[in-house]
């Protein structure tokens, strides 16, 4: 019997979860010690045993798998919380841009400091998510391109969501530049009056953005949930780098969560300071689509608080003490 021909076939007898964890080292062992038909029978029985372990649900107690599952949930929770926080952050920027608070920040150092803290916090959180998520993103894209059709389909969701948003923005631009004329939509909005047609168009833009963000987050969540690989090797400029992708992403997730906490405190402080200096602004309608400033601001704070709490519980779930349980 030609053992080198039988070897790959033998490893494939094992369940996928088992192969993800042991296949590389097991292949090396088979290269060294698969000599006789008895060894083949031994491996065959080992594969049957691994399947029985899965059928009995014993894999659920696998410490390694348990740790990966917990860390993966942590990363997904922090990632989703960050997306929600960013949507709330954009709303805050929209509120501030339309109000007299921006000019006020030039003369009020405390207000300016709170705003700068929010900006620095958002940059740190974004950097942490990008750095922590990069190996994971590369891994899932690599797996999807290597033949996982379902993952490939799911990864197209963020691409199409982005394209839909881009198309809508082009449409808004064409309307704004009078190349497309729609009844009830005016090109230049007068201060204090937002026509219903323009409001409908902006609501459409917000809807495309929010639905795209939700669909993309769910699709990416699903793709990452399907990825049981903890360790991935990357090759670049003639070098190989092996990364424990979930463990690598944990510390950036902690940094992103702490940044969200700092931004939440800074946003509350910014709102409080603005209210004490310009209370009339909060009684006005500087919210999105001319909604009440106070109600809109409280909604932003509520979303930020929920997202920060979600990130906190995610990090708590993946903390080293808990992944060992």
């Amino acid at each position, binding site marked *: 019997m030609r053992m080198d021909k039988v070897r790959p076939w033998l490893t494939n007898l094992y369940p996928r979860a088992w192969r993800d964890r042991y296949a590389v*080292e097991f292949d090396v062992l*088979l290269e060294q010690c698969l000599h006789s038909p008895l060894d083949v029978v*031994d491996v065959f029985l080992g594969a049957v045993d*691994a399947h029985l372990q899965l059928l009995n649900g014993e894999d659920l107690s696998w410490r390694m798998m348990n740790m990966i599952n917990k860390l993966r949930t942590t990363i997904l929770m922090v990632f989703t919380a960050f997306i929600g926080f960013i949507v709330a952050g954009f709303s805050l920027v929209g509120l501030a841009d339309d109000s007299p608070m921006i000019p006020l920040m030039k003369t009020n150092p405390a207000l300016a400091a709170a705003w700068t803290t929010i900006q620095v916090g958002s940059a740190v959180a974004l950097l942490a998510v990008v750095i922590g998520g990069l190996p994971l993103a590369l891994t899932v894209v690599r797996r999807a391109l290597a033949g996982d059709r379902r993952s490939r389909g799911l990864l197209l969701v963020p691409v199409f969501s982005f394209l839909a948003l881009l198309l809508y923005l082009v449409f808004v631009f064409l309307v704004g530049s009078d190349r497309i004329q729609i009844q009830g939509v005016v090109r230049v909005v007068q201060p204090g009056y937002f026509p219903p047609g323009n409001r409908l168009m902006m609501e459409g833009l917000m809807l495309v953005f929010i639905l795209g963000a939700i669909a993309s987050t769910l699709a990416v969540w699903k793709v990452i949930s399907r990825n049981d690989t903890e360790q991935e090797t990357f090759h670049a400029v003639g070098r190989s780098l092996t990364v424990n992708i979930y463990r690598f992403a944990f510390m950036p997730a902690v940094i992103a969560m702490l940044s969200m906490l700092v931004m939440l405190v800074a946003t509350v402080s910014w709102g409080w300071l603005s209210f004490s200096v310009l209370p009339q602004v909060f009684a006005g309608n500087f919210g999105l689509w001319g909604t009440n400033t106070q109600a809109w601001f409280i909604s932003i704070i509520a979303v930020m608080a929920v997202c920060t709490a979600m990130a906190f519980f995610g990090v708590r779930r993946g903390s080293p003490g808990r992944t060992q349980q």
Partner: protein
Amino acid sequence: MDTSDFGRFSDPALLILASLAGGEKHGYAMIEDIEAMAGVRLGPGTLYGALSRLEQSGLIQALPADERRRPYRLTALGNACLRQYLTSLGNFVSLGLQRLEA
């Protein structure tokens, strides 16, 4: 934790623990060591069936891969478990020998 929890893998599990008590090893080194130590040659399927269970139970720990080979080492729990088992086995052996000599 008792190695009898590993069913038909209880003997290989004990051999692996005893092998790793002598220092960290990868799969092939364990097979060679166990053969030299106990005169038993474990098959690759048997070895990894027992290894995965020992790892799940926290008795051994996988170390970072050395190229494609991954070494394992005994954990503190594994050390205590092996010590307890060998001590009780030693008592049993002593008692058995005493009875034979009586």
